[in-house]
């Protein structure tokens, strides 16, 4: 990754307000302010999601650019998606993949193969409250890295973005059944890696720390 721009990754959560239908319809009717507000509501979320696929921030910005130019130009043909955020996630994902695909073809890496699907979350290790939790996060991180990129993405959509199976399936272009399977496999693998005994140990540590605090 280029370090040209300093990339700050704060820990604070991005606030998400779901765009309502009045706003969406007003945008579809050609209201530029409404379009700007939809952009402002989703810019950070889209960048955060895009960053999981590539660390090339220019590419993410290009995809966001294309996505919103398209959105404006096709506004009269768009329906009312159940969730604007999910609709934009899905579009961004498609845009990014198309860009990465053409780039890879251009470089002629893995010619003939499917494009390299990459998905990675960055854990925040600095702000964990105590050693036991840090340890748990480390185990979790190791476990997650053994999963496939698709499994990692579905875990992210489910446990970070809080999406349902249906929503995740729609964004990832999968059918519901394979989404279930994918998530089950991922959770099963996680459970095998982060053994329940380990978790219990960590809990005991947490508990004893708490009692220590109480004694003091």
């Amino acid at each position, binding site marked *: *990754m280029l370090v040209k721009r*300093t990339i700050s990754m704060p820990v604070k959560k991005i606030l998400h307000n779901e765009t309502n239908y009045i706003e969406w319809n007003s945008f579809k009717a050609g209201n530029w302010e409404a379009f700007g507000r939809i952009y402002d509501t989703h810019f950070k979320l889209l960048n955060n999601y895009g*960053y999981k696929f590539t660390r090339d921030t220019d590419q993410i910005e290009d995809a966001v650019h294309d996505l919103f130019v398209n959105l404006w130009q096709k506004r009269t043909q768009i329906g009312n998606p159940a969730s604007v955020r999910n609709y934009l996630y899905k579009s961004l994902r498609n845009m990014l993949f198309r860009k990465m695909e053409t780039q890879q073809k251009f470089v002629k890496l893995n010619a003939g193969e499917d494009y390299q699907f990459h998905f990675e979350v960055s854990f925040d290790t600095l702000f964990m409250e105590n050693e036991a939790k840090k340890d748990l996060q480390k185990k979790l991180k190791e476990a997650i890295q053994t999963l496939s990129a698709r499994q990692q993405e579905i875990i992210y959509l489910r446990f970070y973005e809080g999406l349902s199976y249906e929503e995740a399936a729609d964004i990832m272009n999968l059918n519901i059944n394979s989404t279930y399977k994918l998530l089950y496999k991922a959770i099963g693998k996680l459970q095998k890696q982060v053994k*329940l005994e380990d978790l219990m140990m960590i809990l005991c540590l*947490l508990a004893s720390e708490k009692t220590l605090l109480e004694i003091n």
Partner: protein
Amino acid sequence: MDFSQYIHYNYEDLLNDDAFLHFIIDQKASDLDAWENFKKEQPYRSKVAQAAFETLSAYRQQKVFTNETSQSMVFDRITATINTTQPKIKSFNFLSFFRVAAVFAVVALTAVLYFSFWNKKSIETDFGHIQTLTLPDGSEVTLNGNSKISYAKDFKKGTREVWLNGEALFNVKHINIDTNNIKPAEKFMVHCGDMNIEVLGTTFNVKSRHDQTSVGLLSGKIKIDYNDVSETKKAFIMAPGDFVKYARESKLVHQKIVNPQHLTAWTTRHLVFQDASLEEMIAVLQDDLGYEVMLPDDELNHLKLEGEINVSSVKELLQILSNTLHLTIKTENKKITITK
């Protein structure tokens, strides 16, 4: 929320439960109270739920990439693209409006260009090039690589003003003798970013890059104006040996120069660092010398090299970095790749 429903759930069931997941995501105060009670009342039967809770909480402790700094820029690009591909749909009225606007824009642009360009002289240095120039009043300025200075053509009339982007060492010529009574015509001003430096005859180093300005004063006296956190205008008078750092609309950091040679080392093409992080060193390589540095692992940015480095070439610097920080450094022309 009633957590007692979960006592017979296994770990996997809990991770699959929508209500349980949303309890952790939303963190509602009433739910959190109920959760604490549940743990207290059922210390053993709540263990599995606690394990699921801790797992999800740990997973959700993630870094967030907001790219906030580019938000308005990307929107401007979107606006520009839409506007250039739109006119077909727009009515004639709009077209003629654009024509009128375009004429105005051309007039305005010419005026701006006239005032900023024709009337100004600017000198710009390439990456890695250091240039010393003498201003019409006899003051000397040494420009570091990738830096730009401009000043009015009628520099000698009235206040002497220069605009700086990058890094420069100034040696300003005294015009007045009485420093307590300076007439406007005797002033020398440096404008950079959000800060103005009023010079009262002196030698000082200014670095203004990425919205951050630092000033080190070697001799004489200077006054700086800036906007602080509360957006109020502030002024600070620097004495020799003072060093200040300032980022747009934040607090001014005031330090003492420990080693004056460090401040001006760049003028003799030396790379000098004191207890610097890898990030700081990469910034110099990129900003002054035009290297493109690839660092696939963000964490490496925070690596610190204790003590002083004083070298006269990039090659030497990279040699030291790879030896002391145990890094693998590959150079290819102006591209440097640093890995663990």
